[in-house]
């Protein structure tokens, strides 16, 4: 499923790099520890987190993730938002909890 369709279905707000919403979402990974995401996420995963440090951009690129959903209405660092475009990382936000967002995504892609 395309990230754009997922964003629409879940009423996610696209915060950065809109072009990236044409990417294919093949799975999902949830974690706030970046070392864990680096170790265990898979290419094409959409990543659900409340971690908003700039390092999320590097991790998303390193692992070829389809995008990042920052949940719980958590604010994203200004620096992260500023750099996301140049690093071609799509960050989306939701006021829902990780549980709710993941539940909806599970139904859509599994």
């Amino acid at each position, binding site marked *: 499923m395309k990230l754009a369709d997922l964003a629409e279905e879940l009423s996610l707000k696209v915060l950065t790099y809109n072009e990236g919403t044409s990417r294919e979402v093949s799975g999902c990974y949830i974690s*706030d*520890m*970046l*070392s*864990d995401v680096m170790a265990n996420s898979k290419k094409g995963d959409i990543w659900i987190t409340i*971690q908003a*440090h700039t390092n999320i951009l590097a991790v998303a690129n390193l692992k070829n993730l389809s995008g990042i959903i920052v949940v719980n209405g958590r604010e994203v*660092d200004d620096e992260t938002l500023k750099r996301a475009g140049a690093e071609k990382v799509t960050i989306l936000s939701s006021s829902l909890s990780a549980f709710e967002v993941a539940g909806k995504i599970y139904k859509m892609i599994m």
Partner: protein
Amino acid sequence: MLKQFKADLHIHTCLSPCADIEMSPKAVVKTALERGIDMIAVTDHNSAENVEAVMHAAEGSGLAVLCGMEASTVEEVHILALFEGHEGIIKLQEMVYNKLMPGRNDPEIFGEQVIADEEDDVLGFNDRLLISATGITAKSLVDTVHALGGIAIASHIDREGFGIISQLGFIPDDCLLDALEFSSRISFDKAKELYGNYSNFAWLSSSDAHRLEDIGKRTTVFTMESPTFTELVYALKNMNSRKAVWE
């Protein structure tokens, strides 16, 4: 003249909820001296309210005590902030208290947070949720510590929880840490093998003692003129033949 000083720069007192109640100012000083330690830093979680008591308890004993705190950032990274005098740490404490996650400590769950004096008498209990994180970013915390005249050391970077690498995957370039701390769980050789790409930072290792028996479990030997904050900063920068070594 340069001499060697044994330092354990990460010690909790009974103020930290997770530390043993036996970690009173006098007991910490006595134990450190018994183990041949020359310099310690008092580093309770998100608070410095027992620092002065330990400093007073150590007066005239020959043990040097640095003012410190182990602050928790919004990314849940633990960072040691060390200062020469009380002024900087009090300002940092004020900022940390303002940005600490709301809530009250439940001693039944997390443990007591005892504020003591240099005679080990109980002055009171801190009821903030010291175990929690603050809303301060790692970069902002490090920059603030520097602005207040202190140094910032990333705590136990080899650990799977609350270390800068576990939380952030790698050390961000804009986080201008003065040193990286390794826990007593890792040997120097293993650290070199796993973290060799961070050898541009100064390295040290300490006990992170939460119980008396852990004080001095791991120390760093500093070659410097005297056990003072200024000399420590020189040693971390490898300046004027000062150095820091652990194994």
